């Protein structure tokens, strides 16, 4: 809703036609003589050799999967082998045109792209830089082991290092590039520009778009490449990513000098099959993949269909697209047609294609074709291809022999170190903020909305002890805003986006006034693309940025499910700690709007390993924990209750400090002391629990109310200490009870506090049915009387109190009915 862009009916409603550019198809027409003149014969022979290396490498994996042996080496490889035999021209052609500083993001079938990019970096990086990279990785240990085992030096050692590190990773050995935590479909080696492969189809599109955002803002003169197959064009998140990279605002609103789009190449390796579904003609409507560019931007993403069986046609196209990206004309798309001569995997019986078709494409085998072209151009002598194949086979054999040797590539020792993988989930590191404000941010005093916050009382109670209205005292919303603003002002690596985040200030106004002082490239409105919002946050963080993204309602987590659960949560561990993911995902939990706008999904998020989770309920906690989240090098999901945005600080008489501070993750906070029972609350449940505690006190029962504040991590000691004192434990949550964090807490307290418990722990959550509308909500979210009922019935039955709530039902009968 930027006011700079007028929606003028006299312009909008004028008759006209939408024109889309004509998209070139197989337009490559350079002569071989021109290629030899431009590139030199050695570079062309090297490209052929790289194709041979990839073919032999994947042939080795195929042999292990099919026969359990390769060139006399027996090995039981149990992991995936999604091979790209027949697609080497696309991978090597692309790498020919990329700079070592460019970053590729792979797919599940990216061995070839990884090797081509890595071999390109080995061939082109200055030798001193190569040496430094090899010395820096794992303290030089991998380099030393490879050098000792394979006996080479210089660039040859770097090539062995690449092949061994990658193969050991595919075999998930401890000294693979990612410590054995990634494997075939998740391998990466950032120093060579090989960013993660990704087992989720199309997932790299959004991550590479976010990576490109960081590269644009860092002005580092390099591009990112999102690798995907033709089948990925059926994935919504891929479309979201292409649009995210092509948004109109880059050219029309941003003042960062970065041009009209993000510098990302969407590189579709189009092998005509999405596993067994045929894209053109069966599962997709585009007929030509490149057509989809026309649906995204007026430039049609500069899309072209390119012959992927010819590495030089691919190199030519990638070089031209790369120049467009560096000129700020991105994003761009290439439809690179080629053919997977092997099966999708070793269980592929080719039920979906004919032998005749495969034979036709064997005639178009990129290696056979390219070698013949080089021979007829006089670049490759007679018999040279055989010699190269022999040399490459011996090289791969030597590397393989080393990688299957447990002395050289030891398995991950989980018996000796059972929690090793667990320790890779989080770094628990935090960043420090530069003391000086970042450039380009105006003085907050320039914003009337921010001046309004500055005028407010810090404490939530006036001199007479009465609670102040939200307009007169710092609210939870203001407290969040203060921490976020502090980070935005002091750290220009931090970029915030989400729907309605800019002028509107977010749907619930946390960023109100921010657009007065922050430029577009620090705070921008995202499209309604939750998948791209989160995926881009992940990519932006992988490349050295820090990401703050918002999902308007927590209910929209489902729209970003893969991005949160598989990408944001897992990359730190899958990289064995090489990657940091400073991503803060804000999700507000609704109220009053019924089933699809009011559900508390903390149970879902806390179930997924790899995400820190906070749910503050008071302004003081919100400010300190938001600061901790923004400082965290680990990904954090922040739940915010819409019912609490207007809460003022009533627990701390001194109110919310005006200065910046951080609170530690994982420390629950006693909000009310008592000796008769312990109530652990999650998020807004704090307030009905406190109201229930006040009621219970009238009956002479003193509840200790502990606000969880953080769900992951969580230190149980304060809770167990309380239970040791009270002997009774109740957890209250607004999440549906089944599978909730409250149930986890109750089970943990039952186990570790058993000796002190006088009654079974109890959980009161929302029911295992839909959130009803506003007028029925009080029957759904636990109310003070529900809490008091449960306390009296479960912990003090001898008092025979009247029940006031509705929850007089048989939980076991409900469970049998699926409730």
């Amino acid at each position, binding site marked *: 809703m930027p006011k700079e862009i007028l929606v003028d009916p006299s312009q909008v409603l004028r008759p006209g036609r939408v024109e889309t550019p004509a998209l070139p198809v197989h337009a490559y027409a350079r002569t071989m003589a021109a290629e030899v003149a431009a590139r030199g014969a050695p570079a062309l022979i090297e490209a052929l050799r790289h194709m041979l290396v990839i073919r032999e490498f994947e042939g080795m994996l195929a042999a292990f999967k099919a026969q359990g042996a390769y060139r006399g080496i027996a090995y039981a490889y149990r992991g995936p082998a999604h091979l790209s035999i027949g697609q080497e021209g696309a991978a090597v052609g692309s790498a020919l045109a990329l700079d070592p500083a460019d970053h590729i993001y792979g797919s599940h079938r990216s061995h070839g792209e990884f090797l081509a990019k890595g071999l390109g970096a080995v061939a082109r990086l200055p030798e001193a830089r190569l040496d430094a990279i090899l010395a820096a990785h794992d303290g030089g240990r991998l380099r030393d082991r490879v050098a000792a085992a394979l006996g080479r030096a210089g660039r040859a050692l770097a090539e062995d290092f690449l092949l061994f590190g990658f193969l050991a990773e595919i075999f998930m050995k401890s000294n693979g590039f990612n410590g054995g935590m990634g494997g075939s479909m998740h391998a990466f080696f950032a120093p060579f520009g090989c960013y993660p492969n990704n087992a989720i189809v199309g997932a790299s599109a959004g991550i590479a778009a976010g990576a490109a955002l960081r590269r644009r803002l860092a002005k580092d003169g390099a591009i990112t490449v999102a690798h995907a197959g033709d089948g990925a064009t059926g994935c919504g998140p891929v479309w979201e990513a292409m649009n995210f990279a092509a948004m109109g605002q880059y050219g029309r609103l941003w003042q960062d000098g970065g041009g009209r789009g993000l510098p990302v190449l969407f590189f579709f390796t189009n092998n005509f099959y999405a596993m067994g579904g045929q894209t053109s003609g069966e599962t997709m409507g585009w007929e030509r993949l490149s057509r989809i560019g026309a649906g995204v931007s007026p430039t049609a993403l500069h899309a072209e269909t390119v012959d992927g069986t010819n590495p030089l046609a691919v190199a030519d196209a990638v070089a031209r697209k790369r120049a467009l990206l560096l000129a700020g004309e991105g994003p761009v798309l290439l439809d690179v047609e080629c053919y997977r001569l092997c099966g999708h995997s070793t269980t592929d019986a080719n039920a979906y294609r004919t032998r005749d078709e495969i034979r036709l494409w064997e005639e178009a085998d990129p290696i056979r074709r390219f070698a013949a072209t080089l021979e007829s151009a006089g670049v490759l002598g007679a018999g040279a291809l055989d010699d190269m194949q022999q040399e490459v086979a011996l090289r791969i054999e030597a590397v393989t022999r080393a990688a299957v040797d447990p002395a050289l590539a030891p398995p991950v020792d989980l018996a000796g170190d059972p929690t090793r993988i667990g320790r890779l989930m989080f770094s628990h590191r935090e960043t420090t903020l530069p003391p000086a404000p970042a450039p380009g941010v105006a003085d907050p005093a320039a914003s009337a909305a921010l001046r*309004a916050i500055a005028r407010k009382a810090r404490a939530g109670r006036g001199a007479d002890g009465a609670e102040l209205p939200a307009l007169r005292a710092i609210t939870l919303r203001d407290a969040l805003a203060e921490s976020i603003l502090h980070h935005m002002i002091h750290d220009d690596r931090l970029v915030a986006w989400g729907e309605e985040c800019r002028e509107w*200030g977010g749907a619930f106004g946390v960023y109100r006034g921010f657009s007065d002082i922050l430029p577009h490239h620090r705070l921008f409105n995202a499209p309604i693309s939750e998948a791209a919002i989160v995926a881009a946050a992940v990519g932006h963080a992988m490349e050295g940025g820090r990401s703050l993204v918002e999902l308007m309602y927590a209910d929209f987590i489902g729209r970003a499910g893969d991005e949160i659960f598989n990408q944001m949560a897992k990359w730190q561990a899958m990289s064995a700690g090489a990657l940091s993911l400073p991503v803060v995902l804000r999700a507000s939990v609704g109220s009053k709007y019924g089933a699809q706008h009011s559900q508390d999904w903390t149970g879902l998020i806390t179930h997924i390993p790899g995400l820190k989770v906070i749910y503050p309920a008071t302004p003081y906690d919100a400010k300190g924990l938001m600061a901790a989240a923004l400082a965290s090098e680990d990904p954090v999901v922040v739940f915010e209750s819409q019912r609490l945005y207007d809460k003022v600080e009533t627990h701390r008489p001194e109110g919310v400090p005006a200065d910046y501070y951080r609170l530690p993750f994982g420390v629950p906070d006693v909000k009310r002391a008592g000796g008769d029972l312990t109530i652990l609350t999650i998020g807004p449940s704090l307030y009905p629990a406190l109201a229930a505690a006040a009621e219970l006190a009238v009956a002479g029962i003193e509840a200790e109310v502990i606000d969880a504040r953080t769900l992951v991590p969580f230190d149980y000691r304060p809770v167990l200490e309380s239970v040791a004192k009270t002997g009774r434990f109740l957890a209250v949550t607004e999440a549906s009870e089944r599978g909730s964090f409250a149930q986890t807490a109750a089970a943990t307290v039952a186990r570790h506090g058993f000796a002190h418990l006088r009654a079974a722990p109890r959980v009161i959550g929302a029911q295992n049915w839909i959130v009803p509308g506003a007028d029925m909500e009080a029957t759904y979210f636990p109310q003070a009387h529900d809490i008091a009922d449960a306390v009296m019935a479960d912990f003090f039955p001898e008092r025979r109190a009247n029940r006031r709530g509705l929850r007089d039902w048989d939980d076991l009968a409900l469970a049998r009915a699926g409730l």
Partner: protein
Amino acid sequence: MPPDPTPDPTPVLVPQLGTEIAEAEVTEWLRADGDTVAAGDPIVSITTTKMALELEAPVSGRLRIRTPEGEIAAVGAILAEIG
């Protein structure tokens, strides 16, 4: 009787902004006290707990600010007069 040369000024009131809103803060005066404003000009930005919005001058005339920036006013209270 000749017409009154100085008709009663037109008040600018805090509008009713939804059933849950009782008051609003004057966040920023976009025009200064004493300015001549035209009907439809945005003159003041106000903020409730739910939203921020700009109010327009209901009539043309000279602006007399009655509630300064930073004050909180109830729904129906006079923010300014234009006459």
